[in-house]
């Protein structure tokens, strides 16, 4: 019950904060919205990569499916006289996002099933391959309905910019809520078991196959919703927004934050997105810093900056910190 309360509280705070957004200039607001989208994407990828231990490099592919699906829906609705503002706008956008998420989840199912026999590096390359296949397919789609361009192949697709601060952060909160509750439930322990030792998990009666596919489906659903938000925060999307380099951006966030640590990943999303904003004028440096971060992190601290073990230690310290004085050892150490 505590987590439901936290979710409602978070949504209330977000709605409260949304009244302050007119005070921020548009550019900064756009960046804040982008951070929120990255949080959703990274937290959902963390379910696949961090909690279930299936290294996926295809998150941008799921994003693309969600982005294009929801953009088609909103464009269709607005062209056919459905007001995309006010209450009807909220309903229309919600329907579009959910549809995008559902189609992305189907794509996740499609990736999950053939990937079951693969692990580690093979899985990484196959998901990357799926990402590229989805992108190439989109690049080849271009059609008109009643004189309006849809998808538009390599030229890109004009999208209504209707993503707002409130939408993005409420969805980020829901994503965090779902992923956290899922992995902390009795049922969700299966994900962690698959990650920690697949053979042992199977011996204990965990259906590892089903858990892997579920991780992909749930992760892809939220990636699709995140993709929908991303599409509607831009005026224009092209297939090049969803190459595997975008996937790598999200992967870097998950790794830096610590695979399997939601708090770490959220912090990493904020820090890295801000960092890349600061390095906007020199994009090469951004990627060089990212790549060096990856290499150095893997050599010195493979669990990420705030991996699950670190988080647990911090929590424990806070809890035991209440006891007034540090405990003295019962037997004094022998000196000399």
């Amino acid at each position, binding site marked *: 019950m505590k987590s439901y309360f936290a979710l409602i509280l978070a949504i209330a705070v977000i709605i409260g904060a949304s009244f302050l957004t007119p005070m921020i200039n548009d550019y900064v607001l756009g960046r804040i919205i982008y951070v929120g989208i990255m949080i959703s994407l990274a937290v959902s990828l963390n379910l696949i990569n961090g909690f279930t*231990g299936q*290294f996926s490099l295809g998150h941008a592919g799921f994003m693309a499916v969600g982005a294009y699906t929801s953009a088609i829906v909103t464009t269709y609705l607005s062209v056919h006289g459905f007001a995309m503002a006010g209450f009807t706008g909220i309903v229309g956008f919600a329907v579009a996002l959910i549809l995008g998420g559902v189609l992305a989840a189907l794509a996740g199912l499609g990736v999950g099933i*053939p990937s079951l*026999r*693969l692990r*580690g*590096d*093979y899985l*990484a*390359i*196959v998901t*990357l*391959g*799926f990402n*590229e*296949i989805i992108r*190439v*397919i989109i*690049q*080849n789609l271009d059609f008109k309905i009643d004189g309006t361009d849809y998808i538009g192949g390599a030229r890109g697709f004009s999208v209504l910019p209707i993503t707002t601060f409130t939408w993005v952060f409420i969805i980020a909160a829901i994503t965090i809520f779902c992923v956290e509750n899922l992995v902390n439930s009795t049922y969700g322990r299966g994900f962690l078991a698959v990650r920690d030792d697949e*053979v042992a998990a199977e011996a204990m009666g965990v259906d590892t196959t089903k858990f892997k596919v579920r991780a992909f489906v749930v992760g892809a659903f939220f990636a699709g919703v995140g993709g929908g938000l991303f599409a509607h925060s831009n005026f224009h999307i092209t297939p090049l927004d969803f190459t595997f380099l975008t996937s*790598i951006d999200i*992967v870097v966030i998950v*790794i830096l934050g610590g695979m399997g640590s939601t708090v770490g990943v959220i912090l990493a999303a904020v820090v890295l997105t801000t960092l890349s904003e600061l390095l906007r004028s020199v994009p*090469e*440096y951004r*990627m*060089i810093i*990212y*790549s*060096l*971060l*990856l*290499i150095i992190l*893997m*050599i010195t601290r*493979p669990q990420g900056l705030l991996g699950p073990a670190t988080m647990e230690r911090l929590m424990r310290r806070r809890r035991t910190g209440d006891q007034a004085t540090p405990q003295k050892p019962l037997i004094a150490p022998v000196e000399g």
Partner: protein
Amino acid sequence: MQFLQQLINGVSLGAIYALIALGYTMIYGVLRFINFAHGDVFMVGSYVGYFAATSWVAHFFPVGSLPSTILVFLISMALCAALGATIEFLAYRPLRSRPKLTVLITAIGVSLFLEYTGQLVFSANPRGFPAIISNRPIIHTASITIDTVELVVISLSLVLMLLLRLIVMRTKIGTAMRAVSFNQQAASLMGINISKVITFTFIIGSALAGAGGVLYGTEYPSIEPLMGILPGLKAFVAAVLGGIGNIPGAALGGLIIGLVETFVSGTAASTYRDAIAFAILIAILVFRPSGLLGKREIEKV
């Protein structure tokens, strides 16, 4: 006779993929991990070839003359070998006993590092690769044209592959390589210096990638820092197709990928060209994960 011409084009593209795929497969053989950065070593090979041909060697021999061409290849192979060994020493060696995922992420990091350092140093704009092999048609009929570049690409790849086979099968270090790939622990107990063998594997694999880079530049004369990504991934698919860890398999896989890609480019589905390799990868991993020539590995608990 469009078919014959496509066949020649496909074989020459496949030969380049095969050269890169050999590096993937050899490194996988000894270390059991995919060196993501291999495609970028290939890119560096192209750039070294570019600078060697246009400035370093150009002081002594005119571009396109035989000594210049030979020197360009040798310099590019040597520098790539050094780069490969350095990458292994700095990034992969500290991680040798770590989980595979850690090494994989490091490899992605190295790959991104090479790509974007390349953009910084060489600039992101494409450059025209110099004509280091003067291109004339050798066979020229109504139906088919084979020019010098294609001939050199195919024959040089063939020579390098035979040389590699000779090294692996006939020399002492080659035997050690096979022993390490068969069973690392047992090899080390027999007194084989594992680190030395791994370094040697990286040197050979990267040198082949360097040669591949120069050949690619000669055949498709526009090079840029991100050019290594797609050929690298396709060569990886070739290695998996042939059976990863298997040297003749990599050559066969490269040839198949090159041919399929060329034939797809010639049809109406040409825009799907870049997706075809991945579709092959997914199909092969689902139906025959050990590849065409690979042997099935049993996982022991």
